C-alpha cells in the first residue's frame, strides 16, 4: 500500500508581476518505511514542495493522497488531528523553537494536543522520548536556548516522533549541523525508521547525506522532477543533466587511483 502519492502538484509564486513556477507538475510516491531523498540545487522548489506537503502553503493544482485519504481536502480541526501522522523537522535548529520554550514544553505540546498519553503520564513520556533520542531525562527542565545545535535537532526529532507519525518530512534537517554530529543524527533517524517503520521524505541539497539514508532519490530542477530511481542507480548512473551536475558538485579531495600503466611508478 502506498503511503503517500503526490499527483501533478503545481505551485506558482508571483514576484513583481512575474509568475515563477516553484513546483510544476510533480508526481511522487512513497511507500511505508521508505526514505525518499529529494535533492536539488538552491531554488529548485524542493522546500516549497515540502511545505505544500505539510499544508503550510496552499497548492495551485494537483492532488496529494496520504494514508488513502485526500490530504489537501482536509481543513480545520480534521486537518489538525490528522497532522499527527505527518510531522516535520526543520533546518534551522534555533528558529524552529519558540525562544521562550523549555525542552519539556516543546515535547509536551504534541502530547497534549493529540492526547497521546494521559496528563499524569506526560512527564514520564517526555523522559522516554528524550531517552529515545539519546538525551538525559534531566534536560527536560532546560531552556531550549541552553542546549547545543545537535541536541536541539534531537529534541526536534523527539517532538516529531511524539505523535507516532507514519511520515516525517526532514527539510535539510542535518544541513546546519557539524559534520561530526551529522552522522550520529542520521544514525538515529535510520534506527527510528527500522524500529517504527516511519517513512521519510528527506529534502537536502547534499547528496552525501542522501546517499547514507535514502532508498530512492528524486532529483528536482527549476520546479520540475527530472529523475527518480533507486539510490544507487541515480548516484552511479545519473540520466538527467541536473543529477549529473549535483553529483559532480560533491567535493572529492582525494582522487581515486585509476588503473592503467601511466600511473605506475
Amino acid at each position, binding site marked *: 500500500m502506498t503511503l503517500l502519492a503526490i499527483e501533478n502538484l503545481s505551485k506558482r509564486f508571483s514576484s513583481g508581476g512575474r509568475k515563477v513556477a516553484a513546483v510544476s507538475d510533480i508526481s511522487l510516491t512513497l511507500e511505508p518505511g521508505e526514505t525518499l531523498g529529494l535533492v536539488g540545487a538552491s531554488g529548485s522548489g524542493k522546500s516549497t514542495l515540502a511545505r505544500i506537503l505539510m499544508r503550510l502553503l496552499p497548492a495551485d493544482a494537483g492532488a496529494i493522497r496520504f494514508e488513502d485519504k485526500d490530504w489537501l481536502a482536509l481543513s480545520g480541526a480534521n486537518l489538525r488531528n490528522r497532522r499527527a501522522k505527518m510531522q516535520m523537522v*526543520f533546518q534551522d535548529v534555533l528558529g524552529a523553537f519558540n525562544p521562550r520554550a523549555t525542552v519539556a514544553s516543546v515535547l509536551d505540546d504534541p502530547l497534549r494536543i493529540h492526547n497521546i498519553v494521559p496528563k499524569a503520564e506526560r512527564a514520564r513520556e517526555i523522559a522516554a522520548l528524550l531517552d529515545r533520542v539519546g538525551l538525559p531525562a534531566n534536560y527536560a527542565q532546560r531552556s531550549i536556548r541552553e542546549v547545543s545545535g545537535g541536541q536541539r535537532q534531537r529534541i526536534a526529532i523527539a517532538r516529531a516522533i511524539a505523535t507516532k507519525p507514519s511520515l516525517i518530512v526532514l527539510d535539510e534537517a542535518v544541513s546546519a549541523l557539524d559534520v561530526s554530529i551529522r552522522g550520529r543524527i542520521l544514525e538515529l533517524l535510520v534506527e527510528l525508521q527500522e524500529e517504527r517503520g516511519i517513512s521519510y521524505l528527506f529534502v537536502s541539497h547534499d547528496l552525501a547525506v542522501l546517499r547514507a539514508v535514502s532508498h530512492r532519490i528524486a532529483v528536482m530542477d527549476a520546479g520540475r522532477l527530472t529523475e527518480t530511481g533507486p539510490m544507487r542507480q541515480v548516484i552511479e548512473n545519473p540520466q538527467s543533466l541536473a543529477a549529473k551536475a549535483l553529483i559532480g558538485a560533491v567535493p572529492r579531495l582525494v582522487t581515486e587511483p585509476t588503473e592503467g600503466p601511466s600511473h605506475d611508478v
Partner: protein
Amino acid sequence: MRLLRDLVRTPEGAIGLGILAALMLVALFAPVLSPGDPLRITGRALLPPFTDPAFPLGTDRLGRDVLAGILHGTHTSLAVGLAAALAAIAIGLCVGLTAGFAGGLVDEGLMRVVDAFQIVPSFLLALAFVSVIGASVPVVVLAIALGAWADPARLTRAQVLSIRERDYVASARVIGMHPAEIAFREILPNALPPVLALSAIIVAAAILTEAALSFLGLGDPNVVTWGSMIAEGRNILRSSPSLSIFPGIALVVTVVGVYLFSEGLTKALSSRRLEP
C-alpha cells in the same frame, strides 16, 4: 524577574524604578500621610509655603492644603495614567494581533481604522470626547486611551507579521496547534517586548494628557489632580506662583521617572535580545 534585575542594572532603570516606586507608595499611603478630603478647607487662605509647619507647602485661595492636594493628586495622576495606558495597550495588542494574524481584508480594514485614529490629534479627540460625554475618571481614562492605542496596534502588527513567518510558528502548525493558541502562546509573548518599551512612553503621555484636561477644567471635579491645581493657581500666578509650581514639579518628576524607567526597560530588553 530576570528582566527586573537587568532593569535595575542600568542607571536609568534604577532611578526611574526608584522614582516610580516612591510615587506608588505616596499614592497608596496618601490617606495615611494626610487624612481627610484634600479638597476641604483647612486653614487660612493663601498661606505662603515653608511658613507654617502644619501646611509645609502653604494653602491655596480657598485655604486648602497644597501638600495634601499633591499627595492625593499622585493617586489620580498615576491611576489615570496607568489605566489609560493599560487600556490603550490592551486595545492596541488585540487589534494589532488580529490584523497581523488574520491578514487580507481584516488587516486592511483594521489598519484604515488605525490610520483614522492616528490622523486625529489625540488631545483634540480626548477633549471632544470628554466635552460630549462629561467629566469623570472612567471617561477621562477612555478618552486618553482612544488617542493612544493606534501606535501599539501598529507596532504589534509589524511584530506579528515578522514572527508569523518564523519556523517555530510553522512548527506549531505542523503539530496541529489551534490558531488561537498559536496567536496567544507562540506569537504574542514574543511580540510583546517592544510594545512593553513603548508602553512606558504611553503612560507618560497619558499622565500629561490627564493633567492638560484637568487644567482646562475637563477633569473629574470631585477628585484633586495636579492639572486642576495648576489651573487653580494660574489666576494668581504673579502673587503666589508656588501654587502652580509645586504641582508642576510633581508632574515633571513623575514624567521624568516614567521616561527613565522606559529607557532602562528598552536597554534591558535589547541587552537580553543580544544574548545567544
